[in-house]
């Protein structure tokens, strides 16, 4: 069992857990991920490592409440235990001797972008970052990103904070203005990474993306996470999750991510129902107590 040491609500549906996982923390490197399971009968879900502290033995993960498992995770608090927390999985990212790097993070993607930029910043690389979200209150890791960036652009889709528009608009502007980067790292929803990679391609700048396909074991055993990269089948869990964004078949990835859409809905609806029953049950109990 693995203990949740700290919980932070970063945005209405985005939560951060600091987990007690000393062995994982000791080996974790930027770009790696964990697989967790809440309890017996639960599913195994991959989450990218957002931060780690080998000395304290902690690993930080950030998740958005979307399906059943993440919603259930969202009901948990500091002191609660997770059944399984496996890692660090995947290949750590490595950068050659870069001078200047651009990081582009959209939505939840800012969390996995952070440790990579933090490492580059600590290595003395000049870091420019563009982060964005739908609305101001959905924006995460702004302070953390500020701390590791020489220059930070903030965007929101509705204009409630920073630039009005997508992160890819700023990305395009910077490149059009002739700014040069040794590498660009784009992490976010697949469609954002696809558009972003299309923007950087004509400039010939190496572009790294981090993929989050459906996984079961996370150790190369099932092949469920297979993605086409440069026409070859790769397993995101053991060959990635970081890949050359110019070579990834994002259309295929997006299709494959929809495999269990119907089942995900069944699960989420059941969870919602059970949860509401619990809530209404509690309200009824309270009413009864008040009446007595």
């Amino acid at each position: 069992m693995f203990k949740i040491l700290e919980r932070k609500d970063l945005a209405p549906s985005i939560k951060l857990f600091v987990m007690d996982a000393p062995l994982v923390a000791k080996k974790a490197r930027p770009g790696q991920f964990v697989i967790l399971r809440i309890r017996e009968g639960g599913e195994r879900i991959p989450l990218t490592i957002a931060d780690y502290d080998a000395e304290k033995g902690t690993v930080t993960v950030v998740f958005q409440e979307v399906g059943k498992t993440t919603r259930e995770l969202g009901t948990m608090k500091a002191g609660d235990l997770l059944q399984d927390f496996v890692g660090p999985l995947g290949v750590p990212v490595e950068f050659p001797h870069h001078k200047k790097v651009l990081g582009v993070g959209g939505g939840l993607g800012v969390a996995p972008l952070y440790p990579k930029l933090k490492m580059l910043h600590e290595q003395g690389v000049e870091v420019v970052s563009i982060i964005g979200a739908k609305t101001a209150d959905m924006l995460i890791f702004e302070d953390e990103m500020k701390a590791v960036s020489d220059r930070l652009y903030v965007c929101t889709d509705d204009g409630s904070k920073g630039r009005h528009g997508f992160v890819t608009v700023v990305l395009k502007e910077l490149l059009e203005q002739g700014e040069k980067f040794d590498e660009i790292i784009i992490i976010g929803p697949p469609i954002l990474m696809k558009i972003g990679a299309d923007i950087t391609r004509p400039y010939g700048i190496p572009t790294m993306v981090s993929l989050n396909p459906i996984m079961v074991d996370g150790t190369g055993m099932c092949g469920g996470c297979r993605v086409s990269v440069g026409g070859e089948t790769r397993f995101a869990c053991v060959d990635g999750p970081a890949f050359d964004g110019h070579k990834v078949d994002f259309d295929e990835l997006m299709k494959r991510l929809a495999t269990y859409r119907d089942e995900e809905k069944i699960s989420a609806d059941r969870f919602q129902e059970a949860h509401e029953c619990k809530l209404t049950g509690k309200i009824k109990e309270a009413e009864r107590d008040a009446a007595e």
Partner: protein
Amino acid sequence: MPLNKSKKKTPMPAQKPEVRRRNFNEVALGYTQEDAVNEAQRCLQCKKPGCVQGCPVQVQIPRFIKLIAERDFDGAIKVIKETNSLPAVCGRVCPQEEQCEQKCVVGKMGEPVAIGRLERFAADWERAKGVKTPELPEKLGKKVAVIGSGPASLTCAGDLAKLGYDVTVFEAFHKPGGVLVYGIPEFRLPKAIVQEEVDFIKKLGVEVKTDMVMGKVLTVDDLFDMGYEAVFIGTGAGLPKFMGIPGENYLGVYSANEFLTRINLMRAYSFPETDTPIKVGKKVAVVGGGNVAMDSARSALRMGAEEVHIVYRRSEEEMPARQEEFENAKEEGIIFDFLTNPVRILGDEKGWVKGIECIRMELGEPDASGRRRPVPVKGSEFTMEVDTVVIAIGTGPNPLLIKATEGLELTKYGYIAADENGRTSREGVWAGGDIVTGAATVILAMGAGKKAAASIHEYLQSKK
């Protein structure tokens, strides 16, 4: 002792095909005491028993069968356990027809003695009574690490614990048992039996750590630094092979590993009570002809598929699956398309599988495996409409731990090179089971675990 001269094996009660094809309960129900005694009386008690030679771990077969015939079931299981630590498993999944039973003299005039069924009976007899923990020797104060928790690892760990070593098993999944848990379905090997075997080695003092992806969270070097004096690697052949044909990434195409793991380990058959889903359509094609293909096809049926095909490029004769599993699958209504090879998987605009384009094959000259090589018949392409495809054409070695371990010599196929005692090129490191041989049987893996345990013991005794 009276001799039963029946030419046929005493039948074992089983679920009827029309019933079992829709449930995950065990197919074969096991012998009653009367059945077992009756069958045991078919054994001729040969002076030079071929069956023992046919057994990879040399179970003293005539001895235990004699005890069953004498109704000394406790004695029988004791004899089996002298050399086989997982009899309830082996009695169910060993290919006896190629091993002990193939060498049985009774089999020359009819059906051989049902050695597997008798082994299963004796093991189940003991399980029903509750397995006693043997007395443990004094601790030697030496630590051994075992990586993986499949049949090779469980056997190795159990044997070393009985010798007095402090053994830790490191398992990547959340549940120990390896292929016995994620691969072999409930209807062939109930998971409760695997759990009992794991509980048994825990009673021997073995510590089992789950969620430990070795090579990632800890390396072999870390283990030596932590004070382990020997390491056994039994990580299996877990890397799924795909065919490399167009369309393999369409939705609804699974590797057998994923298909079976979702069902067996993650219990997708209980979805949405459990959280892991699986998509099994109306018409399923399983590609391959081994036991894993049979398991996948029969699982698909139990998940509600209306029609399940096994598509195999060779003919029935070359099929590597056990005869018994083939019979079971046929009885349950699985359709076999022999001499048929997929060339392309077809999908719809949303990316879902809608069919497989196949080509008919014919058998040519023998190939390296000694089996006649299947060659395509020109112009015989045809399309099979299916909505789910499971690829069960074999597995390779998972490179995760291997890549993270320095100084480990590999075979040309990427498996770990080891001598007959499981010794690898690296001092203090042994390996055994599928990670050395490639995908093979439970009993061979157990045999390898056993030899390695003996070799590790010898090494640690001489190393002062």
